[in-house]
């Protein structure tokens, strides 16, 4: 989709700029029309939790599949024709070339339609969208992931990226909370992460539960107990609004600055390309300026999160 942007040039584009030699209405079909989804086929479905399914899909056009790449933190519009599109974080490994993956929590119309899909069904995808995390700028730092519930989807690709480039980062620390042991997504990966020496993983559930071996307590409380050192650390936070609210207070108590604390935002999106105006928080659009923001950036925005 990147070919339709004009870079940093402050100029209004015409068809002549977008499709050299064409200035007719027909050009619209050629001009890398960002509204037209790529068709993809569901190749695998994983039931993660009672309400979350992970979908792996392959673009029907092999050239699209081959050239597809994204930055950790970026999102896409995934849709069922006849029902509509919704925004989801891309949860595949950034190096994955065989499929693109999304993890979807059943909520309303589109997500219910997605949950009814079977392997072999067709979907429409517009991706990638938005800006990812500045992974290069963070080289040499410790990365602390703090996530709850479906927030794990937003951070999955970024965790995978850190693990694939483990030597670039001084440490990888994950705090993951869920209401109940059955509500952890990516259980198969968690098993792997637990085995690895180079990841510091803390799992917590809200209340005691038979057979549970890890921590118990709300994410903010566990975070304070962990007492991470803010020095040379980037904290990335994603989860339900209430968790974010209290985890932020904990972070500030622990001495983290707004500049080193990041989150990814959700806003109702439609176009996903900075035009329809649906996803704004003050002067920022979640779809093109985000969804990744530092707390320092969010502090500048109206209180409309």
């Amino acid at each position, binding site marked *: 989709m990147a070919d339709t942007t004009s870079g940093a040039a*402050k100029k209004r584009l015409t068809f002549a700029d977008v499709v050299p030699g064409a200035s007719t209405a027909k050009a619209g079909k050629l001009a890398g029309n960002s509204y037209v989804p790529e068709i993809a086929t569901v190749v695998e479905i994983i039931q993660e939790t009672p309400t979350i399914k992970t979908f792996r899909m392959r673009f029907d056009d092999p050239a699209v599949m081959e050239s597809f790449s994204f930055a950790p933190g970026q999102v896409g519009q995934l849709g069922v024709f*006849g029902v509509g599109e919704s925004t989801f974080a891309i949860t595949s490994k950034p190096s994955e070339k065989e499929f693109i993956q999304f993890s979807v929590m059943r909520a309303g119309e589109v997500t219910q339609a997605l949950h009814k899909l079977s392997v072999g069904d*067709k979907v429409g995808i517009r991706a990638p969208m938005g800006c990812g995390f500045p992974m290069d700028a963070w080289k040499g730092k410790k990365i602390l992931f703090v996530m709850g519930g479906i927030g794990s989807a937003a951070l999955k690709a970024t965790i995978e990226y850190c693990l694939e480039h483990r030597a670039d980062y001084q440490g990888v620390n994950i705090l993951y909370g869920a209401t109940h042991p059955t509500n952890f997504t990516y259980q198969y990966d968690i098993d792997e992460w637990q085995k690895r020496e180079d990841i510091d993983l803390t799992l917590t559930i809200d209340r005691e539960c038979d057979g549970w071996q890890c921590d118990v307590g709300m994410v903010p409380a566990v975070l304070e107990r962990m007492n991470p050192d803010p020095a040379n650390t980037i904290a990335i936070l994603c989860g339900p609004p209430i968790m974010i609210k209290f985890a932020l207070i904990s972070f500030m108590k622990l001495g983290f600055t707004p500049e080193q604390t990041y989150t990814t935002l959700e806003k109702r999106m439609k176009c996903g390309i900075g035009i329809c105006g*649906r996803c704004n928080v003050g002067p920022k659009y979640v779809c093109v300026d985000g969804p990744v923001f530092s707390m320092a950036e969010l502090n500048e925005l109206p209180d409309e999160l």
Partner: protein
Amino acid sequence: MASKYLKSEQLPAFLESLAKNARVVAPFKRDGVTQYEPWQSGKDVELDVLLAKQSPKEYVFLQTETYLKFGYEMAPVPEGAEGEDAVPYETVKVDPQNEAPKQVIFGLRPCDVRGFVQMDQVFGGYGGFYFDPLYNARREATTLLAVTCREPRSTCFCTSVGGCPSSREGADVLFTQIEGGFFVEPITDKGEAIAEAAGAALTDPTDTQATEANEAKLASATKVDPAFDLEGVRDALHDNIADKRWADLAMRCVSCGTCTYVCPSCYCFSINDSIVETKGDRYRCWDNCFNPVYTEETSGHNPRAKKMNRFRNRFSHKFWYYPDKYDSLLCSGCGRCIANCPTRIDIREVIRVMGAPKEAPAASGAVAASAAAAAAVAAAADTTTEGKEA
């Protein structure tokens, strides 16, 4: 190209000549309401009513535009296929739509034209954003023939936002009403092509006609009252974001969204699907940021659940958010939102109050107070004249 003269009696013939190559759209009055409609032979263009109820934006940015047709169908099984390959399966075909018939809009006002100029930034990828093929196809196929305003209304404030009743910005041709007809100024290549095609309907103007047109322009500009000082509005909106007066100003608003639909530059939209059996459409349609559902998420969480937040968002978007992204304003001062609001919310008042720098510090209290008093007197005088006109 040099300026021309069009006799009033020749207007139908002129439009008829345009209609040979394009759809012609102009303001017409029906049942007391003036709206932009496709022109047909025998229909009289309405130019005495200053502004049509709605802006002509819907001819370029459609209220509802299907941009994708799709259909589910069974993929053909290859001949001689066996086993798994022979199992029929369902697939989906998509067909992007992007129609853009040639059209000429006649009779729009400079503020309506400016609405297009402002939307052009959004849809044209200005500042590194995406290029919108749907809007731009229609925009490039459209020629704008603007008419200078003769009798600006009490709700007009184009001059306060950098426009004027005879502005040429964005217009392909500017028509100015003078004795017996129009003074016609082709501005762009598209405009010149129109003038050329019109042939004998356009004649050379006399010097007196040129002078008369100039005087008409000057006269109309003086009829637009200054509404506020644009200088510093953006920064003041930024600084006043948490100001309690936003709630006072928003109190009367009933969140109906009329202001967004009549506005020539409000452009936000939603995207939806419809399907009947196996065939369906994906379309975009105008949306309205005053609707609480606009931002409501499935969980029930709503970042702008309060009316005050939605109200603040619209005005801040026009004078702060949009300018930050696109280096211009998102209001051309047409005043439609003032005239059509059921509760008479006045954008000029909102900007006067919230777009003014925060009060001066207490040290210069006496000076500030006397300045405020002077401003109050001026404002009172302002309201009286407005009251008389309306």
